[in-house]
């Protein structure tokens, strides 16, 4: 299991587009355990300030950066899929 760093933009546009709901969903992963009772994920979630990509195109929000890789128009399922891929 590899550590995954998830940076979620907490700027105005991303917040209005549900970025904090993505954080809430990722945080749920932190309390999932396998059959041995070991945590299934090693994730660090950070709130980062506006990435300013949305100034050109508002439809890019919300922006989430997973291990340095930027996901635009991010959704919870997209981000969680990427976390699962990177973990293995």
């Amino acid at each position: 299991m590899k550590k995954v760093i998830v940076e979620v933009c907490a700027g105005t546009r991303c917040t209005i587009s549900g970025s904090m709901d993505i954080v809430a969903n990722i945080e749920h992963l932190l309390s999932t355990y396998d059959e041995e009772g070991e945590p299934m994920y090693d994730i660090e979630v950070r709130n980062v300030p506006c990435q300013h990509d949305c100034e050109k195109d508002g439809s890019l929000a919300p922006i989430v950066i997973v291990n340095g890789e930027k996901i635009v128009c991010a959704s919870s399922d997209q981000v969680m899929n990427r976390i699962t891929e990177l973990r293995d």
Partner: protein
Amino acid sequence: MRGIFTPITKLRRDVFTEVARFGYERDLQHTDYGYFYEASYRIIPGERPTYRESVFKERAIIRERFRLALGMKIRDQDHYESLTADMQTMDSTAKQSEMPIVNVIPFACEACPTNTYRVSNNCRKCLAHPCTAVCPVKAISIGEKAAVIDEAKCIRCGRCFEACPYHAILHFGRPCAEACGANAIGSDELGRCKIDREKCVSCGLCIVSCPFGAIADKSEIFQIITAIRNGEDVYAAIAPAFVGQFGPLATPAKVFSALKALGFKDVIEVGMGADLSSRHEARLFVDNVPAKQPFLGTSCCPSWEAFARKVLPGDTGRCISSSSTPMVATGQRIKQDNPKAKVVFIGPCVAKKMEGLEEDVKPYIDFVMTFEEVMGMFAAKHIEISDMTEDNKAAEASHDGRHYAVASSVAPAIAACIKEMEPGREVQIAHADSLADCKKMLLLAKAGKYNGYLLEGMACPGGCVGGPGTLMPIAKAGMAVDKFAKTSPWEHADQNPVVQGKPIPGEPLPTHAGTQPGNPQGV
């Protein structure tokens, strides 16, 4: 869906953002209201439907949402009425919206089945089949492959649902009706949701519970922005639940700055008005309970107050405090200092929009909007809250006043003031959040179980932080409110010097006892 970001949340916020952008960017002299036809294409682009059977219907719903967001009524669909027919009236710097605040967009409603039981494929057609044994009307029988419910016979008692060991019986309810604690959701002749205006207390929980986004509330964003652009002294009175609503990097001090960047002249914490209300209700309690009335109910939640007056008949209804709410007390204070002020209450609440329409509240509160709506203004004006410099203005509210936003905080705030007024007096407290629980509490109070009590009621589960106009998950929002409350230099309302020496709102000030807009006689 509360607490989950869905396509409906996005559409609702897109509509607010478009209305705010129009408000800020339009040419005041030559306004083209056709903007909203175009904007419906921006929100629903392309030719293929994303959410419903056709892209035309999707856009038609968005346009009806625009009407509500501009403060207009929903159009009847059986004859022609222009999208922007009422825009000349709405294009105003004064309040234009009227009851009803909460509206069903009928053609967006999918007419969900009401209170029905159905057999799912979890049914194992078991030997015991307790479902048939418990059915009091013999509506359930064992068919070829599974149990079958005869809907004509079924009396919807739910006993089969409880008896099935495989949980194979499903209950269908309408999410709007299940969210409604006032039992105000019925059906029109096409089976679509219809709100009973006599019962509705405008809590707005149906709005955030409908999975098809068919219910929406009226907004005043457009008139607020128009007043700001007209150069008027527009003040933001921000409800205690605001902390944390705009994201983890938007500190309260940055939110104050950001609101000023929207054009508000100043920002006042409604927690200050909450302190005034706490002191006043403590006075009412000390003077009247139990000598003149058996108990006292709090006044801050307009849905609870309206609901309590419907549940409790006649004299008992007067046991709910009619003191001015924190919102009104704050508006009064702002207008004392600046008679030209226009006051915008910004909160998590749809019911405050109803309260704002009461005749005795109108002089103090000009507009009411939600956090979600003001977020649309930030987005439209490209204001990045986390980039703002901190406005470290002096505290205006005590810990208790700032904590009003969380369920079961209001009564203790009042009790602290009662203890100060009458040392040694033990105040018994009961509280309920959600109208269903409020109803139970009220019926017990009516039966005399709460004599001598201070009763706190809130319509939204969790209190104001769980309101329909919020952006953050309830638990996180509650923690943020708590953290900010602890930074106040004063613990209780009566220690707050900002509200000392000022008249305690009450006698010369409005009593909105039982006057609900659209129902002037009270209930």
